[in-house]
């Protein structure tokens, strides 16, 4: 079943590779609505041959819907899509691939209960071709593994390798770098550069502006379901991108807000009481870590993928058993065996995957109030007024958009994330464990989250913070601890935790500067 050879995409007319010539992909006036919700109003997109083109926009701006229309996952209500000058609309992802558009979605198109080989065979991909693509990316995976046994980042790379075997004219990467460790992300950038050198193109959907500026030739920005600007990212920088993404008034307010966000040059020395003490903790990849989380501080944890940070968060929140070491909450021993034990001691978790934390069909109010009734003692009649008050306070503090409040699944990603935080505001907490709280949400909401976390700390809360975006650490944290090889390798003051330094520490390297 030699897939690659027999399924080559249509050979387009090869003229001079010229970006003013017929664009490789052109979408005009694409519109799509789901019931009363208009996801795309009239979106345009034009990608030339031989370029890396970014697709940006806040959550709800229409990026994922546009990609779904381009790749045949959904049918647009209106609009035209042309590939190399010929009108062609993909009817399914397979069809899109035949047209020369190969998508790589955030959720890998691989089923967990079959092996890699079986998965590839199912889709008619050549096992050898995929393996050679992986070799080019300097990755090795045994194809006999069951897909369910492999970690998500590897599955994404497999998906990418498979897409590459079709030699697509346009490679569409939908938020592929979200939750990819930087070493794998590097390989993705290499792939993107390579495509460009061969005269092919890449459509890169992401929330990470720094990556866009470093890798993309042009960027199209969507807002409210339409294209509000196509620009060269390097010319305007992040500020310009954010301005276009949010709209001029919003951007101005953002700029003011973020100026207020700037942490002081001197990290506020947290002298508060110890809330959570870790003593020689062993769990997952963590081999012996000790630190103290105090009231009034935001403590960051920086680590590469798979260093045990997820297991650490889970253990602290009561979802996983510790393998060794001792925990204390406010001086007293803490041995949680169930999330309830942790929540009772006011240690609460905001998980990286908000789908794990939310009740999709229930209302915002029910979601926010959920932990209040987690014990049989509270199963009796609800004091609706008291509940209403708590929920309202939390919703206001987070500025949650309540328009689709009846079912949380109708909210945008950013609002959903706010709900996962709001529930702990409503129930009260001593330590808030945030594992990648800003994953996959838009810039505007991210800034709100940063400001909120700093505020909560200032009010006496203790916050443990992990992010896969290094740029966030200096904005949010008072101190940052780096983990590598299962141990702490460095402790930095928040403002000193710039990307370069962090990366060195995360790789276990000696730091250039003295540690704060």
């Amino acid at each position: 079943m030699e897939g690659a050879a027999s399924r080559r995409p249509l050979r387009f007319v090869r003229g001079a590779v010229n970006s003013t010539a017929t664009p490789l992909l052109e979408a005009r006036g694409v519109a799509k609505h789901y019931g009363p919700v208009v996801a795309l109003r009239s979106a345009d997109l034009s990608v030339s041959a031989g370029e890396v083109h970014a697709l940006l926009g806040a959550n709800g701006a229409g990026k994922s819907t546009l990609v779904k229309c381009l790749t045949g996952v959904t049918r647009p209500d209106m609009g035209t899509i042309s590939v190399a000058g010929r009108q062609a609309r993909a009817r399914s992802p397979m069809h899109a691939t035949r047209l020369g558009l190969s998508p790589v979605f955030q959720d890998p198109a691989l089923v967990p209960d079959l092996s890699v080989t079986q998965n590839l065979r199912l889709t008619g991909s050549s096992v050898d071709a995929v393996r050679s693509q992986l070799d080019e990316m300097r990755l090795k995976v045994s194809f006999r593994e069951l897909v369910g046994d492999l970690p998500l980042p590897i599955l994404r790379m497999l998906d990418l390798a498979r897409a590459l075997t079709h030699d697509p004219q346009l490679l569409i990467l939908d938020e592929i770098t979200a939750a990819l460790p930087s070493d794998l992300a590097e390989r993705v950038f290499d792939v993107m550069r390579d495509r460009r050198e061969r005269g092919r193109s890449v459509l890169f959907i992401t929330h990470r502006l720094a990556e866009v500026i470093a890798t993309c030739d042009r960027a199209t920005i969507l807002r409210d379901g339409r294209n509000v600007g196509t620009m060269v990212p390097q010319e305007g920088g992040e500020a310009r991108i954010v301005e276009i993404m949010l709209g001029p008034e919003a951007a101005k307010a953002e700029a003011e807000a973020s100026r207020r966000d700037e942490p002081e040059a001197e990290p506020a020395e947290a002298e508060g009481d110890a809330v959570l003490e870790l003593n020689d903790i062993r769990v997952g990849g963590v081999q012996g870590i000790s630190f103290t989380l105090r009231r009034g501080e935001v403590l960051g944890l920086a680590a590469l993928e798979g260093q045990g940070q997820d297991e650490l968060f889970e253990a602290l929140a009561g979802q996983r058993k510790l393998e060794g070491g001792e925990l204390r909450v406010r001086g007293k021993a803490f041995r949680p065996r169930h999330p309830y034990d942790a929540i009772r001691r006011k240690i609460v978790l905001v998980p990286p995957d908000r789908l794990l934390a939310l009740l999709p069909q229930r209302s915002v109010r029910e979601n926010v109030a959920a932990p209040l009734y987690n014990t049989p003692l509270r199963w009796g009649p609800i004091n609706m007024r008291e509940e209403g008050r708590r929920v309202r306070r939390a919703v206001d503090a987070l500025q949650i958009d309540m328009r689709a409040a009846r079912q949380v699944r109708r909210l945008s990603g950013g609002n959903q994330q706010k709900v996962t935080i709001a529930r702990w505001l409503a129930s009260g907490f001593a330590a808030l464990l945030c594992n990648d709280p800003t994953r996959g949400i838009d810039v505007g909401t991210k800034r709100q989250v940063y400001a909120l976390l700093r505020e909560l700390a200032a009010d006496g809360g203790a916050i443990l913070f992990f992010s896969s975006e290094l740029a966030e650490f200096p904005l949010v944290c008072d101190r940052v601890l780096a983990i590598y090889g299962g141990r702490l390798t460095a402790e930095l003051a928040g403002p000193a935790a710039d990307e370069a330094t962090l990366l060195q520490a995360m790789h276990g390297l000696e730091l250039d500067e003295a540690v704060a």
Partner: protein
Amino acid sequence: MTVVPEALERESRLDVVRRFLVDNPVVVLVGVLVLLFVLTDLVNRHEAGEPFVTWNQLSTTFLVAAPLGMIAAGQTLVMLTGGVDLSVAFTATAAAFATSWQGGNGTVQGILAGLAVGVGIGLANGIGVGVFRVNPLIMTLGTSSVTFGLLSIYAGRSFEKVVPGFVAGLGSDRFFDYLPANLIFWAAIAALLILGLRYTGYGRMLYAVGDNEVAARLAGVRVWQVLVLVYALCGLFSAFGGLLLVGFTNNPDLGLATPYLLQSVAAVVIGGTSIFGGWGSYSGTIVGVLILTVLGSLLTLLNADEWQRQVIYGAIIIVLTAIYARVSGAE
């Protein structure tokens, strides 16, 4: 500064109506019920020369529907958590037998025996599903098998079957000629359930566990507690149903509640409760129960053969659920 996340257009009036129906599916169902009543009325006038929508007939309809209403109540709660209880019919029958068996020793003893049996079976189910994480289909299948076996043994033995007077009255009396005693009972239970689901912490937890068990656990809910209790409650309601049934027939029989198993699932589904959990209500189930009961009367009036009843019954389930899915725009 809030970023506007969803572009919500101004909705046309049709969309507003549509959304109201989606969020309140009970309205559609009541419409279907009314339609059925009208249809039955027309057929009755044609066949027997009398209208169907009389006080007497209405009263009988509710009388007949009440036991199913009880059994479907338990099934509703279980299905809200994403499970299903296939043992409700034999639990009801077992409760009826227990009551008759102890009935000779006194009314209270009889009733308590029946309820205890129901709760006991429910607890067994709950422990299996909640503590040992057995799939509800299998667990309740197993308990129903065990219950049926035990029942067959006891039914074989001859013992004095005394249905307590109170139970018989509850099952078959009507006040003022038209108000069935069991309807009063049903109404009380219904009120408790509807209010309970909406305004108690346990109600919230049922929806939470059914909607996303992982998220519920992360919020500190000890899911096994919720599940053990819900199956025990289901057993209790099945027992109520069994008591009402035996009160009506005055004769505990092995096949007493057998048709009620699938009817209970059908009533809950027709009533709009999602089979995957996390969405639904008892008010919908009530209308579902009534629809099935009136449908049964209609088919009897049409002198439908048994096989015709079955086919129509099955088709109705599919058609009604399809309509509901279409109206609510389920993904």
